[in-house]
């Protein structure tokens, strides 16, 4: 700080505290509601201190599910979400590190054409081609399968670009030395490129884990069977009617469970998260 200004310091902290309060308030209310009984929530205004039904609510949703709306157990949904959140980043990293290696380290006919083919996919988010993609999935028999949930999401240009950018910064001398020592391209890939790319991979993994975990529209279309629900879809399916008809205590417990893994990833891996976020958007 350049100069001492006690009043400005006070305002700064005041603004930040108000901001942090507004940001955190929904989380706090969600947590409180997940520890109350349904009757306590229905009494207006609901209590703002945690109640005594924590274990009851959480074990009910984890092992039995809600009684209205979706009846699937949240533990199974968490498993499906985990599969998605792991398969999407791993798949994405694998196919894009291979393709950008080919684009950067080889000269071959149609190279630019393929590069542009991948590039164009940046412009077509799932949301704009919902119906035809759904039809394609149905034709291929991929509805209600893990392959159907994850495969369409692992193709993306962003990861390919990120790796391409990074490969450009690897000194040419390394490839030259490898060639002189008689190493083939794949040997060079495994012994030099992959170890050097570890930071980029970690950053991508964190961002894509959150992306995979939080997918909504895609599983909504593909997973019509309760056994394939992800936890985000599960919450939506528990909301059946007007606001008084829902089992809010169970919905909020499920919401806590849905937020926890990605929030932990963001907070504990803050360094990778910020790096990944800032770099994937460049």
């Amino acid at each position, binding site marked *: *700080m350049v100069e001492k*200004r006690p009043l*400005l*310091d006070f305002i*700064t*902290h005041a*603004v*930040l505290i108000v*901001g*942090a309060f507004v*940001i*955190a308030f929904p989380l706090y209310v969600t947590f409180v509601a997940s520890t109350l009984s349904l009757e306590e929530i229905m009494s207006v*205004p609901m209590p*703002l201190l945690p109640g005594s039904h924590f274990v009851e609510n959480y074990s009910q949703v984890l092992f039995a599910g809600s009684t209205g709306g979706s009846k699937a157990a949240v533990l199974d949904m968490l498993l499906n979400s985990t599969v998605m959140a792991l398969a999407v980043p791993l798949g994405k990293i694998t196919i*894009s590190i*291979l*393709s950008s290696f*080919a*684009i*950067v380290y*080889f*000269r071959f006919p149609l190279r630019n054409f393929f590069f542009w083919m991948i590039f164009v996919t*940046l412009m077509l*988010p799932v*949301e*704009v081609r919902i*119906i*035809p*993609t759904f039809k*394609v999935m149905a034709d*291929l028999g991929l509805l209600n399968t893990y392959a159907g949930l994850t495969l*369409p999401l692992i*193709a993306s240009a962003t990861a390919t670009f990120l790796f391409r950018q990074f*490969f450009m910064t690897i000194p*040419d001398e390394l*490839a030259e030395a490898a060639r002189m020592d008689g190493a*083939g*391209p794949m040997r*060079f890939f495994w012994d030099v490129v992959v170890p050097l790319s570890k930071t980029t991979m970690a950053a991508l993994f964190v961002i894509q884990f*959150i992306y995979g975990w*939080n997918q*909504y529209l895609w599983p909504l279309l593909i997973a019509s069977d309760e056994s394939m629900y992800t936890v*985000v*879809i599960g919450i939506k399916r528990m*909301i059946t009617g*007007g*606001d*008084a008809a829902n089992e809010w205590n169970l*919905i909020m417990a499920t*919401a806590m469970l849905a*937020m926890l893994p*990605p*929030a932990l990833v*963001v*907070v504990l891996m*803050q360094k990778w998260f910020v790096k990944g*976020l*800032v770099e994937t*958007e*460049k």
Partner: protein
Amino acid sequence: MEKRVVFRSAWLPYALLAPQLAITAVFFFWPAGQAVWYSFQLQDAFGLHSSFVWFDNFAALFRDPHYLESFKTTAVFSVAVAGLGITISLLLATMADRVVRGALVYKTVLIWPYAVAAAVAGVLWAFLFAPSIGIVTYVLKGFGVDWNWIIKGDQAMLLIIIASVWKQISYNFLFFLAGLQSIPKSLIEAAAIDGAGPARRFWTIVLPLLSPTAFFLLVVNVVYAFFDTFGVIDATTQGGPAQATQILVYKVYHDGIKSADIGGSSAQSVILMIIVIALTAVQFKYIERRVQY
């Protein structure tokens, strides 16, 4: 940029590219092509017969008052989400950049909503604002505000704006903070020695230097409001009441999946694709400029 040292192989590069190209072709080009194809077709109610109708689907769309209304809704919604999101996070980032004590705590609290799924963010806010049991509704009633977003369109709009902005603040905040921290301290100090106060320094030095970040975030936020808020809307208002919150992407979903109007929905998809391509082009033009800068 090209590598000077390259490897040679007649088949290996194709093999390395194959997985990505296969997925891109099956899940991007095939469906996108079909969207364009369906948009020129009219299907009968049972999907048994379809005929080629040229631009009839598009013409019908632009004659449809609901579709034009959806354009307006999208415009209001995205301007509000981008404007509020950018302003609030710029304020918070500027403040967070000033503090020394407790910086990590503030930062951690402010960035975690990024981890919340859009649909979950919608559910959390819908619960706070629930017409009969919501805690915020209760407070509003104390102030004499009759809150019921299930029947009042403008309140429904406000609800999805709040939920969408809340989720996006952390993203904007991180980018602004990174931008602020990359401004050389010597510039600020020089201005302070010349007698410029904090407000003057913000307007004449910090804000102009942040403008590339702000512009980048503007494009990202508009794209976010256009597409990624689908979860917020589907989990709360579902486009209602009376289509007051039916943004373009929700209408594509609603007409295509719920009303099974394949031709009309595909025509809307094609229009959306054109909008995305235009937005992406703007974004890339800007990135080219920034590289020179």
